[in-house]
């Protein structure tokens, strides 16, 4: 989910860049040197994951996966998402350099909030609690991102209110899909590699 260049106003772009820089700094600080390869390779995996289109009725939607990024990486979601966005900007011209900050925040902030809100549930011993937490975390990632995009548009100009609302409504089906995906993915990882999620035993 990105906002293209040339739409947002200067105060929004600057605030986004400052907030993103702060988040990335915290994320890097919390990542030890030995962990950098893991975060790097996982960012690559998320990048590939976000290229996957899943069918939805007559159309298809591409995955965002920021809820899962948050679950697996915590604060490191900020640098990981920044890296992915930079590659998308350079390789496909999605998003761009000036909107990098705003786009990083809109996707990474819900990821980190999801990590704190639903992380404990996902790591709990009870399978049921974990799955409910995972569904909510996946949906929350998309919901949060859509709301932040709408907010960035609205802050640029009140005329963007309708567009912003549409962005949120249009993402409701994506929320359901991402929630289900996170649920099944967590169920899978709890079975085959609980260490990845740091599940309690």
């Amino acid at each position: 989910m990105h906002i293209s260049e040339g739409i947002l106003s200067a105060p929004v772009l600057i605030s986004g860049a400052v907030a993103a820089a702060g988040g990335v700094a915290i994320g890097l600080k919390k990542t030890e040197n030995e962990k950098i390869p893991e975060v790097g390779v996982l960012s690559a995996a998320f990048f590939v994951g976000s290229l996957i289109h899943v069918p939805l009725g007559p159309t298809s939607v591409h995955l965002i996966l920021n809820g899962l990024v948050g679950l697996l990486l915590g604060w490191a979601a900020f640098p990981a998402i920044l890296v992915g966005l930079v590659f998308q900007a350079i390789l496909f011209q999605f998003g761009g350099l000036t909107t990098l900050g705003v786009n990083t925040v809109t996707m990474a902030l819900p990821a980190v909030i999801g990590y704190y809100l639903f992380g404990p549930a996902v790591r709990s011993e009870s399978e049921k609690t974990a799955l409910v937490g995972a569904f909510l975390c996946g949906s929350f990632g998309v919901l949060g991102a859509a709301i932040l995009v709408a907010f960035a548009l609205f802050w640029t100009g009140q005329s963007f209110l309708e567009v912003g609302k549409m962005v949120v409504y249009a993402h409701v089906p994506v929320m359901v899909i991402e929630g289900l995906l996170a649920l099944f993915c967590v169920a899978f990882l709890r079975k085959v590699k609980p260490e990845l999620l740091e599940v309690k035993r």
Partner: protein
Amino acid sequence: MMDPRVKILVTLGFSVVLAVADRPVVLGMGMAFAIFLVFLARLNLRQVMTRLLVVNTFVAFLWIFLPFTFPGPALFSFWGLQITRQGIAACVQITVKSNAIVLASMALLSTSTVFGLVHGLHHLKVPDKLVHLFFFSFRYIHVIHMEYHKIINAMKARGFEPDTSLRTYKSYAYLIGTLFLKSSERSKRIYQAMVCRGFDGTFWVFQHFAFRKRDLFALVFMGLFILFLAFMQWGSVR
């Protein structure tokens, strides 16, 4: 090859000025400059068009709403909806801005290798950890993409046909879970292999770049043009 640092700085400067500019003259000159760069870079025009099409989908989305929601005198109206002059003007402005910025960054950035650009970031004093993250991530995107194809082909060979069903989403979720798992394990092997070879936190690169005379020329020429645009936008002479 142009020094990647020059490319990064010029792209950044141009994007920032154009993103916040609003005077038609400035936007027009920016667009002309971007098109000039595209021809200078001898990009494949068909490829450029395909990219622009993708970029303009979000812009097209705005064209559906903005003309109706911008306040101002109505240009014309139908079904009780009013299209305002300001709304149309805002749409045109956004369209020109985003296309000009995309064209310029295509001409400047996509003509360098990603490794070259990331190396340039290092020399522009971007923190080491972030630069390393870029290196690792880019190095393994292709590998993991191959992994993805291997799994999806195996699924298709077993009769997997994606549709709107819980089963499909479950299959994709397991596919993504497998990708994470393999990536995490691969990263541990990579790190161990690096430590075995004496990794001490320094990244050594094969290809180096130098700041040459023509880089200086390019930086000065494009830098002055960007300053000129900024002056036309915010300068005192109006």
